[in-house]
């Protein structure tokens, strides 16, 4: 092959690698954001404790691996249902009475909840950061010379499965229809015989379970410590607003778009401006589509 050919090939490889990395990271962003957007869509709660729910999922997977030897990816069948129940309990005993007092109250309330959870975790788990090294995931697969880290590939597959499951739940089941009805208009839904309070509780549980699931998927690729939620939640809000508040497909599109833009931006513009590029995109989308990429305006 001549020189130009090699040059072109390496250019293509860089581009492909950036896209693959971007999509993989973006799918994790999307997973974190979906839970947040679903809670907002149905209940109009901006859950500032969402990052801490992710953190709890991460610690859950970490402990079940280090103490019991359960593969972190398999542990999702423990932690998602456990956090689903946990979320419902939080709603029943902590949130329910605050919701009718308005969005500002729930905002402050979940901010307080996030501090409480993070500090309890600091108390019990200490501030040490931890990483989880899976023996089978030390080195990435290299199809066509493009590095695909195994934990991220598994996480992507599971994120797709969870998304399909969520889609089926929302579109094919009675509970799903009730959730969507409540999201569209809680009063009309109540008039049609939907038990709005119960749906709220299920939705909050679902949002929490999705956060925990995202945490479980993140652990093998990232590190964890009790206040890790802080760095996740900022990205998460950008994604949710980018995709359209309350829109599940929007959160997925937003997550993957942000992952791609950050990755390509870092390679082709400058790493130093990685976050800047993300936020510029964010501002541009809001400028031209104030309700987000796939958002539907709601009066």
């Amino acid at each position, binding site marked *: 092959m001549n020189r130009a050919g090699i040059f072109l090939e390496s250019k293509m490889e860089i581009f492909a*690698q950036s896209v693959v990395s971007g999509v993989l990271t973006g799918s994790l962003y999307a997973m974190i954001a979906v839970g947040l957007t679903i809670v907002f869509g149905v209940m109009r709660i901006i859950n500032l404790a969402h990052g801490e729910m992710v953190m709890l999922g991460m610690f859950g997977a970490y402990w079940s691996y280090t103490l019991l030897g359960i593969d972190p990816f398999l542990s999702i069948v423990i932690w998602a249902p456990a956090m689903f129940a946990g979320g419902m309990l939080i709603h029943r005993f902590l949130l329910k009475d605050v919701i009718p007092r308005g969005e500002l109250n729930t905002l402050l309330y979940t901010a307080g909840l996030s501090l409480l959870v993070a500090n309890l975790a600091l108390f019990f788990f200490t501030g040490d950061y931890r990483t989880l090294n899976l023996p089978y995931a030390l080195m990435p697969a290299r199809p066509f010379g493009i590095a695909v880290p195994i934990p991220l590939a598994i996480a992507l597959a599971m994120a797709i499965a969870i998304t399909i499951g969520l889609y089926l739940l929302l579109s094919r089941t009675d509970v799903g229809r009730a959730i969507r009805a409540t999201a569209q208009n809680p009063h009309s839904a109540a008039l049609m015989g939907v038990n709005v309070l119960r749906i709220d509780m299920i939705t909050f549980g679902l949002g929490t379970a999705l956060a925990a699931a995202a945490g479980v998927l993140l652990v093998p690729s990232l590190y964890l410590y009790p206040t890790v939620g802080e*760095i996740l939640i900022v990205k998460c809000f950008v994604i949710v607003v980018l995709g359209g508040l309350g829109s599940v497909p929007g959160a997925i599109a937003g997550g993957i778009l942000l992952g791609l833009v950050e990755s390509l931006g870092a390679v082709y513009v400058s790493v130093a401006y990685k976050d800047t590029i993300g936020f510029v995109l964010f501002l541009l989308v809001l400028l031209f589509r104030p309700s987000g990429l796939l958002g539907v305006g709601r009066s």
Partner: protein
Amino acid sequence: MSYKAKLLAALSLSLALSSGALAQSTLKIGAPQPMTGPDAPFGDKFQKAYSMAVEEINAKGGINGRNIEVIIEDHQAKNPLAATVAEKLITQHQVLVLTGGRASGQAVEIASVAQRLKTPYMVDHPSADIITSKGFEWVFRNNPTGSIYPEAFNKFIIEVPNALPKSAAVVYDNTVFGKTIANSAMTFLKSKNVPIVNDEAYPVNSLDFKPIMTKVKANNPDYVLLVAVSTTDAILMTRHAKEIGITPRAFVGFGGGFGVVDFAKQLGPLAENVFSSAAWSGNPNEPATKEFYDKFKAKYGFLPKEHEVEGYAAIYIIADALKRAKLTGNVDADRETVRQSLLQTDMTTVFGKIKFANWEGPLGDKYTNQNAYSRDHSVLAQWNAKGELLNVWPKSNAETDYVFPDKALVR
């Protein structure tokens, strides 16, 4: 005795006790450190080092009969908070002298507060040149500055046959620490006509280094130089660099996250043969330093490194200054006395020789109260398969032979 008399007796007794306690009051040293958040493990290291030194000093009779005490305030690795807690230590806890800080960004804030509130600040670990090059007469530093960190690496590439890089990629965080070290390393490489094929600054606590490493891989550099103040960044960037498949002759980190045991613990085999130029932790071939290593290991179960040695030495330097100072009990006057006393420091700790002086650094910075022996305090170390970081260059400090080029990378 009547009730009143009893009360009076009790009151006077308690008064006598408390004034007695006042005369015996401890000498307070303040240390802002990250006790929670991503840098919490570092705060823990310094806490252990300080308390070991404090226990030893107090057990030997303290400072002229008075005990010393280190008060740690948590700044969570946040720069503005570092200024707040430094001020709190000075005004509320009435400490005589400050130490600690952990990272340069936070230490810069603490130094400004110390200068403004006229309290000596004996820097034990933060390394950015600017901390001692602002002309602050209240700020002292035992450890070498960031621009000195790469000196052992510089010696290595000059002195070891065939080691001079044909090209180098430099990836560093955009903190004071990262920029100082990267700048110093690149200045030297350019002076040797080594092409810098990547010059990449990333925001601290990044979640994804694969894009940067993709960019680096495209240039196929001979050396990859990495600077990370945060351990999580050091771990993630090394992992992503190896995942993407970069194969230089050597990965070289410069202290920070590359010098802590967690680096090898979390990365496992991926940490093997990674160099770290910086981490001066005393000369292990010195008997006194070796003795400290063993004592520390016996007490806490792990070998001390730069942070523990620096923290431990800092308390001894401060104790030495306090011992020579004639304290009056007036905090403001005593702080000035301690500052004067620090200026006269001339001793050897487990870290090495120490004497504060004003001199010019490798990049032309004019240092104030910077340890005059700093240029001797740079060493190149390398992680081995057992997860130990051992000194390899210069020879006088070496604990083992270097592994170069890094064969673990050739597949």
